[in-house]
């Protein structure tokens, strides 16, 4: 191992340590509101980074992450609820057998959520990854719709439109940030590996990649499965953060938010996705003001629900028209870059 790579590892290790200390501080001193915001940020980092694997790194427009999130959320929720709790919530029709008696600890439930999403991705990957471009976009958009319809109608599995209530809020800073760090490490590792380079070759020019002996289907399927796993786990985390899930919770709106995040961060940049997630989730909180009534003492301005989405839609349009590369483009933050900047050495030296 050469010296600079050793330094980089040390820096990564130190910054993870810093994150740990920050989370520890938050764990003891932050109020409920900030805890929730920090948890949401971490879950969105997980979702955005794994979504970016398909859209940014492989260059395929996938519009169905909400389907995988829903699958993960329902699976994990059904597994952590105790049999008694399940009996109490399934009023119209009882839950089907193995699920009705099964109860697993939270980590295993999360894992199961991820695996169910992977299974779904595997089964649908064969037909879906044969198409490209707009067709891929619309078929994957269909996933979200199909899963929503299933969640609404499979009364004996999902409890229909009533959804699942009263989940134990297992998701805490350690779980949410732990998963986020794991996701980022996996996706960055994958991007640097031979598989990742092949994926980027497919993004640049699929025909040329084929001519070089890269099999697009195999690589896209791998990206699809990895992304599905983390989206599923994120769904499980989200379910145990919100504690109530229903079929209307994870709509195309979620996909839209993730799309804004990865476009803002720069399609293909993992560090960009992290940065953009932080900006968007915190910005979303600050913008809450515009939807709340404003009091000017003598007169009152009523709040305008939906205004935030107008702002975000405009942001997406402006970004895509005038600033298509996003914050970081395809560039990744690296320690090497930072050291060069600090020492004033030119890039690439």
């Amino acid at each position, binding site marked *: 191992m050469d010296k600079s790579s050793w330094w980089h590892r040390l820096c990564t290790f130190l910054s993870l340590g810093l994150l740990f200390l920050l989370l520890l501080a938050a764990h003891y001193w932050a109020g409920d509101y900030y805890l929730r915001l920090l948890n949401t940020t971490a879950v969105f980092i997980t979702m955005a980074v794994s979504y970016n694997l398909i859209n940014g790194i492989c260059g395929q427009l996938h519009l169905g992450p909400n389907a995988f999130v829903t699958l993960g959320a329902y699976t994990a929720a059904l597994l952590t609820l105790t049999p008694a709790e399940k009996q109490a919530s399934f009023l119209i029709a009882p839950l089907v057998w193995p699920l009705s008696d099964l109860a697993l600890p939270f980590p295993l439930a999360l894992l199961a959520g991820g695996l169910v999403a992977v299974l779904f991705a595997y089964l649908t990957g064969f037909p879906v990854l044969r198409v490209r*471009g*707009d*067709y891929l976009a619309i078929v994957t958009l269909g996933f979200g*719709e*199909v899963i929503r319809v299933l969640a609404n109608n499979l009364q004996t599995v999902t409890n229909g439109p009533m959804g699942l209530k009263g989940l134990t809020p297992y998701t805490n800073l350690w779980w949410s940030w732990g998963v986020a760090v794991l996701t980022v490490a996996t996706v960055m590792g994958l991007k640097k590996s031979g598989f990742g380079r092949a994926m980027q070759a497919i993004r640049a020019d699929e025909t040329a990649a084929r001519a070089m002996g890269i099999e697009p289907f195999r690589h896209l399927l791998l990206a699809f499965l990895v992304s599905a796993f983390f989206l599923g786990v994120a769904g499980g985390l989200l379910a145990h953060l919100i504690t109530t899930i229903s079929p209307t919770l994870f709509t195309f709106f979620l996909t839209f938010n993730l799309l804004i995040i990865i476009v803002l961060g720069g399609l293909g940049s993992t560090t960009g996705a992290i940065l953009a997630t932080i900006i968007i989730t915190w910005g979303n909180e600050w913008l809450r003001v515009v939807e709340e009534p404003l009091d000017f003492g003598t007169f009152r301005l009523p709040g305008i629900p939906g205004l935030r989405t107008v702002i975000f*839609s405009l942001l*997406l349009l402006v970004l*895509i028209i005038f600033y298509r590369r996003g914050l970081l483009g395809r560039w990744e933050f690296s320690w090497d870059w930072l050291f060069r900047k600090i020492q004033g050495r030119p890039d690439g030296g």
Partner: protein
Amino acid sequence: MTWAGFAQQLINGISLGSLYALVAIGYTMVYGILRLINFAHGDFLMVAAYLGIFGLAMFSLPWPVALVAALVITGLMGALLERGAYRPLRRAPRLSLLIAAIGASFLLENLALVFLGGRPLPFPTPAVFAGSFQVFGLYIPRLSLLIPGVTLILLAGLFYLVGRTRVGMALRALAHDGEATQLLGINVNRLISLTFVLGSTLAGVGGLLWAMKYPQVNPFLGVLPGLKAFIAAVLGGIGNLAGAVVGGLVLGVLEVLLVAWFPAWSGYRDAFAFILLIIVLLIRPTGLVGETVMEDKL
């Protein structure tokens, strides 16, 4: 199911299918020329429906004036959308264009939500279009005849325009090869604007008829019909005008019959179109009618 019952469902299916066809035409025309799925296309149903409410209920205009005004404004908004959001991206990667379309769709829906509220508004259907009559023991709402009738007339006009006029020839040339068309001295920008005006106006007609058929207008009215119309366009072979009509009718009739034959599955109705889409893309990706080569299908 009895024959009378079947006929009844068939009429319902054709009327729904005609609406899909009207909207699918817009998708297929824009796709043929720009190779773009205009995600915001479905939202023009909503725009026209709200404009119809304004004209009819707020300004109490006579219905022909109100409806035509709604259609004209919808058509212009379609051209405006292209000018503002799609034209700057003409040379950008196609995925950027698609993302812009998604952004535009959310913008339209949420502007409606901000300005008009989320509560559904009733659509004041003019008396001419309401009511129903009975033939051979079948109960036929007047709209169920009106919708296919209007669709038929508009499509005949459109087919004439595209197939028999000079403008139509230019449109076909543009769909075939944009750069060569430009080299021939044809004003491509004006043609693209025209395509959007035509497509949005047809979607607007679809929206007004939809609002008469299901008289509850909300900001997200156009989302599901829009998606299904797009599926209808793919089903028929995207880029192909006749295909869009066939696809729309097939989808409408199948959807209605599915619910009629298997009432227990009615909840799955909205998933059906997507499953059909996946099957079509697998078995016959060029669609039922289309022989068009799709460059980015491997």
